[in-house]
C-alpha cells in the first residue's frame, strides 16, 4: 500500500465520470422514467374513465331497452283492443246486414205472395167466369154476372 500520484489520476477520472453521469446519464434516465410514469398513470386514468363510460352506456342501453319493451307491450295491447273492436264492429255490421237482408227477403216474399194472390185471384176469377159461363152459357149475361163474380173475387 503506497499512496502516490495515481491518486490524482483516479481523482480526476472519478470527477469526469461523475460529471458524465450528472450530465448525460442521470437526468435523461430520470426524465424517461418520469415520462413513463406519467404515461402509465394517464393510461390507467383513461382506462378507468372508459370503464365508467362503459358502465354509463350499459345503464343507458338498459333503460332504452326497458322503454322499448314497455312501448312494444303497450302497442301490442293497443293492437289487441283495436282488433277486438274491429271484430265487434264487424259482428254488428254483419248482424245489421243480416237483418236488412232478412227484411228485404221478407218484403220480396210478401210482394211475390201478393202477386201470386193477385194472379191466383185473377185466375180464379177467370175460372169462375169460365165455369159460370159454361154453366149459364145461354141465359146469363156475362156482363151482368161479372159484377157479382168480381165482388165474389174480392171476398176471396
Amino acid at each position, binding site marked *: *500500500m*503506497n*499512496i*502516490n*500520484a*495515481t*491518486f*490524482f*489520476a*483516479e*481523482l480526476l*477520472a*472519478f*470527477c469526469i*465520470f*461523475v460529471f*458524465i*453521469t*450528472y450530465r*448525460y*446519464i*442521470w437526468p*435523461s*434516465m*430520470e426524465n*424517461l*422514467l418520469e*415520462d*413513463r410514469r406519467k*404515461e402509465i398513470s394517464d393510461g390507467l386514468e383513461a382506462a378507468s374513465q372508459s370503464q365508467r363510460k362503459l358502465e354509463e352506456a350499459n345503464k343507458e342501453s338498459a333503460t332504452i331497452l326497458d322503454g322499448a319493451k314497455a312501448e312494444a307491450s303497450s302497442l301490442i295491447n293497443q293492437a289487441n283492443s283495436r282488433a277486438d273492436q274491429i271484430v265487434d264492429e264487424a259482428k254488428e255490421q254483419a248482424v245489421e246486414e243480416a237483418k236488412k237482408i232478412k227484411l228485404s227477403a221478407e218484403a220480396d216474399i210478401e210482394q211475390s205472395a201478393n202477386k201470386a194472390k193477385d194472379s191466383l185471384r185473377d185466375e180464379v176469377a177467370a175460372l169462375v167466369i169460365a165455369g159460370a159461363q159454361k154453366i149459364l152459357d145461354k141465359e146469363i149475361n156475362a156482363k151482368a154476372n161479372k159484377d157479382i163474380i168480381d165482388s165474389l173475387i174480392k171476398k176471396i
Partner: protein
Amino acid sequence: MAKENAQNLIETSDYIGHHLVNLTFGWCEKTSTWGFANHQQELFKGLDSACKVSEMGFWSFHLDTIFMSIFLGAVVFGFFGLVNRAAKKGVPGKLQNFAEFVHEFIASAVNSGYHGTSKIVGPLAFASCLWIISWNLMDLLPVEMASFFGHFGGGFNYFKILPTADLNAPLALAIVVMILVTYYSVKTHGAGGFLKELFVVPLGPLEFISYVSKHVALALRLYGNLFAGEMIFILIAIMFGQFAMSFSQTLWFLPGLILNLSWALFHILIVALQAYIFMMLTIAYLNLASTKH
C-alpha cells in the same frame, strides 16, 4: 528436503509479492528520468528506468490501476450512456430494462436517504456504486489470468487488474466525497458553524477526528475488504500451484478447487456489498452535511 522446502518458501513469497506489485511508471531519483520500474515490462525498452518500485517516490503512477479503472468506467458508463441514448418511452427492451432497474434501485436509495436539494448526490451515488462494482468484479477473474496475458501478450511482467486493491483508487473516491461533504456542510451551516461543529460542540476536537476518520474509513473499508479477498485468492492459487511443483502435492488440487469456488461465490456478495455500503455511506454523509440538525 529442507532445502527444497526453503526453495518452495522463497518461491511462494515471491509469488505473493509479485501479485501485490503494481505496474509503476514514475520519477526515478537516481537517474532523474521518468520511466517504468525496473524489469516490470519488456514492451517499451527505452522507458525502463534503473529504479525499483520501492525506490520511486510519490511521483509515480500505477498504470495498471489507472488503465483498468478508466477502461472499466468507459465500459460501464458507455453502456449506460448508449442505452439511455437509445432508450424509448414505450415498452423497454432488455438492456433498457436492466439500466432502468439499476437506476431505480440507486434512485430509491438516494430518495430515501438524502433529503437535501443537491442535484449531484444522485449522479455521485450512481457513478461511485457502479464504478466500484465494475472494479470489484475484476476480483472474480482468476488471479493468474492478468499476469498470464500481461506476460505473454503485452510484455508486462506486472499487471494488477483490481483497482480496488490499490489504495489510491478508493481513497480518491473517498476524498471526492469528503470535499463534497465539506462544501455542503459549509453551505448549510456557514463556515463558522461548520468549524464550531468540528472543534467545539459537543466533544471538542474529537469531532474533527471523527470527521477525518470516517472519510478515511470509507476508503479503507473498501480497500481492505477487496485487498483481503484478493489475498485469499492468491493463497488459494498457491494451493493449486503446489500440484504443479511436485507430484506428491497433487492432493492439494481438490481442496484448492473447492476453496476457490466457495470463496468466489462468497466474494460475489462482497463485490456488491462493498459497493452498496460505499454508496449508502456517501448518501448518508451528504445528507448529514446538507440538512440542519
